[in-house]
């Protein structure tokens, strides 16, 4: 099978899937198509009737009023019908498109909740968003509107040809032969203006780069008194852009006048031929006016259809991307088991895990903790610390071995049961757009203000929350807070619900030492009596841990208390000393 066959087969399959999606609106779709046919035929017939009416207005004292009235009253009925049909059709089309979009998006967001993190981690956020938002819009516009437009375009062409042929064969043939000329003219112009558009987008690209640099770093520009030089550089590129833009805009704007000129010539041709034919009785004056009207419109459906076909192809491409997302295998089904009154004994046996098939990351991982113990995990970057958290929370499933909480394998309890037993604070903070209260109460939606304030005082976030313009009711945006403040807010979240076990990823990079100390204190307070897993960076955390796990290349290479490990003089000893040296210079 050739490649093209496969693609066309794929797009056929996609098309069928789309049809299944809009299946529940099939009644509306059929109705829309019928209405489209009705309006097109009515609208094409109206000029014909006007032609007949004009024929009755022959000359002085020769006007046949009763027949003229007959045609005009029919016209009135038809335009009202056609107007009503058009409006209803638009409403139906709107309903179909918007509801389909809504359906697809609702389905996507539900599917996203169930997708394994491996998929979400492996795809860029922007890419998935554009599937859910932009692709969906293009799909519905292109598919549904394209479909009806394509249909009415075809009916218009057939109808126009029938009506024209019924008026005069020769003139119709002439129009059919001459119209492609304007296509060629348009094509010629667009292929020649392409070069100029390239030059324009090139200049625009360079200008945008300069803008991003200079305006993006405007403070530096000003600090160095570079303002004049930056203006000069901008002026040079701006001049270039002006030059290339002017050419591009001008040449591309030639298409309309040129095709209009071709059409005018065809129009003149129709008039000429008509004028010669009328005296012979092959055509009436009214008939000529119909032909002239059609000659003007004849081009339009062709343009429509060609743009609709591009849209349809585009829509199919988008549909493929959406279905790729929707058909992605969700997480394995959730068992119904629950965990009651978690003590916090975690047992990890022979666990192995890999992100990629042929790259084993964690192998033969064993760890047992008694309730209430404090486990510090240390090791160089990429040793598998984050992966370990992913496995504990069951964000990822192990490839081999098992993890149990209080003796129950986590694959036998529901994900909610296991996840709600842990309080998790990640280095990578996440704030959603909403009030401070909304953000803190994620884990406990109906917490009272007293509880929230108490939690935020305990986690030292109250100091900055208090100073926000509206306190707890301040709406937070992506960058309303500093990194350290976000971190404190995330800790407050966990502080509010305080589950029996904790997973903490110590953040060090973006926080100054003093804030870090506050955070540390908050951490310490939370950890009391709770089984805690801490990805540790700070010496004090490491030293105070009941057990230290030293990871390297996915496995535990050393395990024990600080003193034990130091005495052993192994990897931990080296690591500890190097950190010590670093901090103390």
């Amino acid at each position, binding site marked *: 099978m050739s490649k093209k066959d496969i693609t066309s087969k794929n797009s056929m399959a996609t098309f069928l899937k789309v049809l299944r999606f809009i299946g529940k609106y099939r009644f509306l779709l059929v109705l829309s198509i019928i209405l489209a046919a009705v309006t097109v035929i009515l609208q094409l017939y109206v000029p014909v009737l006007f032609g007949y009416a004009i024929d009755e*207005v*022959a000359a002085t004292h020769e006007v046949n009023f009763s027949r003229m009235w007959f045609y005009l009253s029919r016209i009135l009925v038809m335009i009202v019908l056609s*107007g009503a049909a058009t409006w209803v059709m638009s409403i139906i089309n709107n309903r179909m498109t918007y509801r389909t979009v809504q359906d697809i998006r609702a389905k996507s967001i539900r599917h996203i909740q169930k997708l394994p993190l491996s998929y979400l981690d492996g795809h860029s956020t922007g890419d998935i968003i554009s599937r859910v938002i932009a692709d969906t819009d293009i799909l519905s516009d292109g598919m549904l509107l394209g479909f009806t437009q394509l249909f009415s375009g075809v009916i218009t062409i057939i109808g126009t040809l029938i009506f024209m042929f019924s008026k005069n064969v020769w003139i119709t043939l002439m129009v059919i032969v001459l119209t492609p000329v304007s296509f060629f003219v348009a094509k010629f112009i667009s292929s020649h203006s392409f070069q100029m558009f390239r030059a324009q987008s090139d200049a625009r690209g360079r200008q945008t780069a300069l803008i991003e*640099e200079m305006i993006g770093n*405007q403070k530096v520009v000003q600090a160095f008194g570079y303002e004049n030089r930056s203006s000069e550089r901008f002026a040079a590129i701006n001049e270039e852009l002006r030059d290339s833009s002017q050419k591009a805009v001008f040449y591309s704007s030639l298409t309309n*006048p040129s095709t209009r000129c071709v059409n005018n010539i065809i129009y003149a041709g129709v008039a000429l031929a008509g004028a010669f034919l009328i005296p012979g009785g092959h055509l009436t004056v009214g008939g000529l006016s119909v032909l002239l009207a059609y000659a003007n419109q004849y081009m339009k459906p062709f343009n429509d259809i060609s743009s609709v076909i591009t849209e349809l192809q585009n829509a199919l491409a988008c549909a493929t991307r959406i279905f790729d997302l929707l058909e992605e295998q969700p997480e394995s089904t959730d068992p119904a088991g629950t965990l009651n009154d978690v003590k916090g004994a975690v047992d990890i046996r022979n666990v192995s895990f890999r992100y990629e098939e042929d790259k084993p990351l964690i192998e033969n991982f064993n760890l047992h903790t008694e309730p209430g113990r404090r486990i510090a995990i240390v090791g160089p970057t990429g040793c598998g610390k984050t992966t370990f958290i992913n496995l504990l929370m069951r*964000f990822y499933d192990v490839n081999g071995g098992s993890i149990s909480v209080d003796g129950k394998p986590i694959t036998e309890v529901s994900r909610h049961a296991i*996840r709600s037993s842990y309080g998790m604070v990640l280095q990578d903070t996440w704030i959603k757009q909403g009030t401070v209260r909304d953000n803190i109460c994620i884990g406990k939606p109906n917490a009272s203000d007293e509880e929230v304030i108490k939690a935020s005082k305990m986690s030292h976030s109250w100091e900055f929350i208090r100073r926000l313009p509206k306190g707890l009711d301040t709406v937070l945006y992506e960058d309303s807070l500093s990194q350290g403040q976000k971190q404190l807010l995330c800790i407050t*979240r966990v502080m509010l619900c305080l589950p029996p076990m904790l997973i903490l990823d110590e953040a060090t990079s973006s926080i100054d030492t*003093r804030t870090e100390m506050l955070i540390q204190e908050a951490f310490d307070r939370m950890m009391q009596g709770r089984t805690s897993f801490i990805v540790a960076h700070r010496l004090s955390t490491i030293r105070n841990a009941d057990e230290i796990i030293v990871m390297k290349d996915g496995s535990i290479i050393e395990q024990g208390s600080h003193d034990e490990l130091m005495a052993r003089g192994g990897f931990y000893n080296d690591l500890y000393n190097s950190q010590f040296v670093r901090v103390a210079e």
Partner: protein
Amino acid sequence: MRTLAKYLRDYKKESILAPFFKFLEVVFDLLVPIVIAQIIDVGIACNDHGYIVQRFFILILMAAAGLAVSITAQFFAAKASVGFAAKVRQAVFDHIQKLSYTELDTLGTDTLITRLTDDVNQVQNGVNMGLRLLLRSPFIVLGSMVMAFTINVRCALIFVVAIPVLFLVVFVIMFLSIPLFKKVQGRLDTVTRLTRENLTGVRVIRAFCREEDAVSEFDQSNLALTKLNEFVGKISALLNPATYVLINIATVILIQTAGIQVNLGNMQQGEVVALYNYMAQMIVELIKLASLIITLNKSMACADRVAGILKVNSTMNYPENTSAVSKVQDNCAVAFDHVTFSYKETGAPSLSDITFSAKKGSTIGIIGGTGSGKSTLVDLIARFYDANEGTVTLDGQNVKDYSRKELREKIGVVPQKAALFQGTIRDNLSWGREDATDAEMWEALTTAQAREIVEKKDGQLNFRLEQNGRNLSGGQRQRLTIARALVKKPEILILDDSASALDFATDAALRKSLHQLGGNTTTFLVSQRAASIRQADLILVLDDGQLAGKGTHQELVNSCETYREIFFSQFPEERIKYEKTTGKEVLA
């Protein structure tokens, strides 16, 4: 809009000629039905083949002439709109160069970039379309009416009634739907935001088992969007059928009236065809006009936004020339006298009541937590912001009395964010001083511990950096930005936490070489590392905008609680020593 209009003034000629030639094109368009009428009423009625052929060639000539004038019109429109946009862009860019930090903070970088790019492009589009089409459609509509009057007054009266009614319908529908479209965009933004939040926050949502809440919140805004879309759709979908029905009713009345007029001998059949054509032409133009107005409306909104930037004035005024540099040669490079400062639109002050003075040639360390006001303090030295209360003096003279140029020459800043620019290393270093020699650049690089980096690059000083210097590591970038400030040989050097990406050894070497600069350079070192500022002549400890302590390291260890906390958290072994010697316990 008026703010931008002046930039079109240089293209006055083009802005008049473009619509004028468009008008000529309309005239040719309007003449066509008349010629057709003549063919019918004279040529066909008298079966005069010569006349018909002659009229045919007139039609062809008119088509050619129409093409010529409309190309001319397009040319002038392109020239005027593109030229106008270029001028606006330059004006906005130059204006931004003059804004102070306060305005830059308020407006935001992203906004400024969008205004300069997308918005100006939209305005260009609007001007171009406006010049070409805004007059064409009214010309055709009114022209049709005028032509109708030349044919038959009674029939023309139908045009007089029909046109305002059509205009009214088109505009009512449009003005109802345009604000609604904006609302739709707002709701779509919400749906997009929620989708993003669901993806970026997936771990948190799952950890707190909030999947169902997330879905139901999404469903709500998804439904709201659909509902609004359908509502707007109903209104805007009225436009086509309503105008179609109205224009055809007008045509029916027209034919009926024309019938009577022809019967009375007041006009001929061909003229009826002409009137019919005028009606048909009008409706096409009205619809075009409607969509044009939507485009223009959008670009007006963009124009307003662009003009908004131009209307923002810098809140900071610099004296043209320094009022005779007072030769108060006190030994004090920088002094703060009860300085209080808060950022615009924030409540609590970021700095309150700060007083200190820095001796010429000394090194001043500034330490404190995130948001304690360290960067704000150094920004006030360079007068990037003005203090709300109190005074900042440089060499005994108020910073407000220095000209912008003098101030910039005096002070070299190494900002927190290591921003480098596309271009050679030499280009970047010459930001410090335009006429710096290579020798001076190498000297600065050596001091900044960056000599080795540059030496290892192909072409050394000619090595090209990519945008934002992204082909260098963070530490390399920081050292180059330090060198850039050093090229200036400033009297006051400010390093705003600009050694954070350096390892401790390089950091120490850097401090040593900065110290050796000696002379009159007063250095301000902002840092979170106690080690970096330990040796400074004066250390300022900031805590939540307050000056928690000032003095040397030893003085502060003895007297300042905040400083002790910071210092001991980074030097645990020192705490043990301290606790042993003093018998006091220190919180950690």
